[in-house]
């Protein structure tokens, strides 16, 4: 079986899609693409915050179309890693990975991240209280769910779409990346593939556990 050398990484907000994709690309020597970067470029150009973007995207599909257009073009690319909620949808022949995690951990990560990471805080993703962030994450997940359902008739958080599911709640992006890398190499050589859920052993991936 001739596999496409494309990895798409989807999953929950805060699951580490971006950092994991960076590290997988490094291990494989692949090129990195990200729908987050595409969105952030649009936000910067239009001077919108992420909340405003999500609000506007409900009724105005031009924003999503712009992101989709750039993603679809990657279908003919070779040796790329793409982190995108809808990567699995636009490139179904890719190695489709879903990064899962507990909502509490998601919130804590985004909250902590916002304090340090300027690419998020510049777009209004950083906020003052944990409760506010929790509400933001929930609103974002639900907003995306209903938007994608309306636009594409799919649920990006339905695990059925994926080749590999990794629970990232207790592991660093580097550990998730290595598991992804290792499974991808097996997928490349496999005649048939059945969805896998990775069983990373207990560990001390993080210096400070959430």
């Amino acid at each position: 079986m001739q596999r496409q050398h494309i990895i798409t990484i989807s999953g929950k907000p805060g699951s580490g899609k971006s950092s994991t994709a960076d590290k997988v690309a490094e291990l494989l020597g692949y090129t990195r693409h990200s729908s987050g970067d595409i969105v952030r470029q649009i936000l910067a150009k239009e001077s919108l915050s992420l909340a405003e973007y999500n609000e506007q995207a409900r009724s105005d599909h031009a924003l999503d179309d712009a992101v989709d257009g750039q993603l679809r073009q990657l279908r003919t690319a070779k040796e790329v890693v793409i982190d995108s909620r809808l990567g699995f949808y636009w490139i179904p022949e890719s190695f489709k990975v879903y990064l899962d995690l507990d909502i509490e951990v998601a919130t804590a990560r985004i909250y902590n991240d916002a304090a340090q990471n300027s690419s998020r805080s510049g777009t209004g993703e950083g906020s003052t209280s944990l409760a506010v962030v929790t509400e933001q994450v929930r609103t974002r997940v639900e907003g995306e769910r209903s938007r994608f359902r309306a636009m594409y008739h799919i649920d990006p958080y339905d695990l059925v779409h994926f080749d590999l599911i990794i629970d990232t709640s207790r592991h660093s992006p580097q550990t998730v990346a290595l598991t992804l890398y290792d499974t991808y190499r097996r997928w490349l050589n496999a005649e048939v593939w059945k969805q896998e859920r990775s069983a990373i052993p207990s560990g001390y991936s993080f210096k400070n556990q959430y």
Partner: protein
Amino acid sequence: MKKDIISLGGLPGSGKSTVKALLAEEFGWSSFSTGDFMRQMALDRGVSFDEFNAQIANDKSIDEQIDAALIRIEQTENTLIIDSHLAFHFVPSSFKVFLNISLDVSAKRIFSDGEKETRKSVGDVMSSLEEAKARIKARIDNHNDRYMRFYSISPYDITKYDLVIDTENQTPAEVAALVSQGFNQWKSL
């Protein structure tokens, strides 16, 4: 019956040998390192470590010597710290630890580690950070290919381990403490 054997696997530059030395001192156990074993072989042949790795890519006899050493450990040893990619496979009675590290940080470590005698004597020293990264990646690919071909196993399949530690933001002493703590839990189970 669980033995007092800890095996450390992991990516190049993850700190296996440093952590091994710390644990050996803490527990008062002796240690075995397949990396040092192979570096010594490279030294005996008068080639650099990467040349040596390239030479043995198709030569199973070197692997067989290492395998034999590991199998002997599994059969006869009761207390030991092992630093080896394949110990999780050949020494299944050990407490199996995987030390993880990103390529970026690993490259920085190995690059600045050039002063260490075990590396310096076999040309395992990098002239730039980029070169370090490329050579580490080549080493990972080489391990993957060789072990898949010879044993049908992946040395970087962390699901085969008892404990995985990301060493990126931790000192060797902190990592050693986590291994030690994990080992005690494992023994008591």
